[in-house]
């Protein structure tokens, strides 16, 4: 299969250039030298979820599955399957085209190795829909240092997408290549307080727009013109603390900036509380605000090299309020298989002051509902 060959070629090229053997032996040496608490592999689990997103004329729902199992003491394997059945009547689609339905399927698989005080993860994913194929390979390292109080992590993702359009005979016509670099540190500050700092740089090269989307220049609709490269950086700081017995407070703040001049800030505050041994409630509030890309215009009055009317690249804000409830049945079988059921509901509002709804000539806004039901256990 083409993906498999591409994957093994990428991996061997990556290994040669980055001296991964050196990295492994360095980590193994560090692992042998420490007597501190070591990293642990993720627990075995099986999850099945049904998810729904409904907002702005787009409805996407479907099942998803995840399975993770240890092979012996040092290796954990995982596999996942995800389906999105999309019914798209979004404002772009309704005002410039006609509503459509399509299905997106994604698979992912991964392997984690425990090497001394570190966990090395290699994983891959592929997502297919009629006019877009996205593939990615990831490598991550997480090392526990400083008596297990600090976790350092590094990660790399190489993505390769094929872009297409279903209204042409020749579906796929261009591609996107992506490089993502991640670094993070998680620090235990007290027996009841954790903080984490993560940074990521994402670089893309290729066809970064949508072949179906139109921009507006002097009132007329033209195909959008986007740069073929984009580099963005994000930094996130978050804190998790047990502020009252069985109650935790989580605060996250992320700053994003990129070469298209989009600057975003995202803040999330969440509270989690246990109610007895069986119930757990998590309530969260998330606010996202961003500035417009340099070449974004709802109706450009100047003819520029690049122009887009993609509302996701405009200056907008969104607010989400969500609740997550987890239930562990009290029965003996539930205890033995670690069964728990989680229901999530989130209501999000999006306000686009710089994107005009052509149907009523007013700034566009919509509310969306996100719902998930997850059944989890171990085997």
């Amino acid at each position, binding site marked *: 299969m083409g993906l498999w060959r591409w994957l093994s070629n990428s991996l061997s090229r990556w290994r040669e250039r980055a001296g991964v053997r050196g990295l492994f032996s360095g980590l193994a040496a560090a692992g042998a030298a420490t007597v501190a608490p070591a990293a642990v592999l993720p627990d075995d689990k099986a999850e099945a979820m049904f998810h729904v997103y409904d907002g702005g004329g787009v409805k996407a729902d479907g099942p998803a599955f995840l399975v993770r199992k240890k092979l012996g003491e040092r290796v954990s394997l995982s596999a996942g399957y995800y389906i999105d059945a999309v019914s798209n009547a979004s404002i772009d689609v309704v005002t410039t085209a006609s509503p459509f339905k399509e299905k997106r399927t994604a698979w992912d698989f991964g392997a984690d190795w425990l090497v001394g005080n570190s966990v090395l993860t290699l994983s891959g994913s592929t997502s297919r829909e009629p006019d877009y194929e996205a593939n990615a390979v990831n490598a991550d390292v997480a090392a526990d240092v400083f*008596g297990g*109080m*600090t976790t350092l992590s590094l990660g790399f993702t190489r993505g390769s997408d094929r872009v297409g359009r279903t209204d042409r005979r020749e579906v796929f016509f261009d591609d996107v290549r992506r490089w993502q670099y991640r670094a993070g540190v998680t620090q235990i500050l007290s027996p009841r307080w954790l903080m984490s700092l993560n940074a990521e740089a994402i670089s893309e090269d290729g066809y970064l727009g949508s072949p179906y989307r139109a921009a507006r220049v002097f009132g007329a609709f033209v195909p959008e013109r986007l740069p073929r490269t984009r580099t963005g950086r994000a930094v996130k700081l978050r804190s*998790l603390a047990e502020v009252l017995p069985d109650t935790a407070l989580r605060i996250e703040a992320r700053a994003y900036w990129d070469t298209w001049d989009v600057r975003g800030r995202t803040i999330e505050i969440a509270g989690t509380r246990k109610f007895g041994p069986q119930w757990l409630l998590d309530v969260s509030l998330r606010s996202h605000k961003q500035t417009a890309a340099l070449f974004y215009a709802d109706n450009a009055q100047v003819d520029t090299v690049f122009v887009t009317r993609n509302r996701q690249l405009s200056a907008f804000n969104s607010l989400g309020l969500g609740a997550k409830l987890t239930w562990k049945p009290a029965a003996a079988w539930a205890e033995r298989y670690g069964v728990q059921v989680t229901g999530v509901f989130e209501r999000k509002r999006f306000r686009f002051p710089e994107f005009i709804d052509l149907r009523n000539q007013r700034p566009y806004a919509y509310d969306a509902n996100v719902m*998930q039901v997850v059944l989890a256990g171990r085997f």
Partner: protein
Amino acid sequence: MRPERGLVGTSLALVLALLGSGCAIKPIEPWVKPYERERLTDPVMQWSRASLADRHREHIHSVREGARGAVGVQGGGCGCN
């Protein structure tokens, strides 16, 4: 400015600073002992409890918003073994 180099430069600088400080001063003792980590294994003190649900939520954010990245990785927990 080439910010990839900025990211790498900063992490290298941080690491060298740690290395340097290790030479100059006695290594700091970890102040949270393994037997004090009970609260960190509690479900309320996990960053993520249902990975599928969280992944789906992040997927929605990256599709519906112009900003993405730095979603986060694990840490904390039991620290056993």
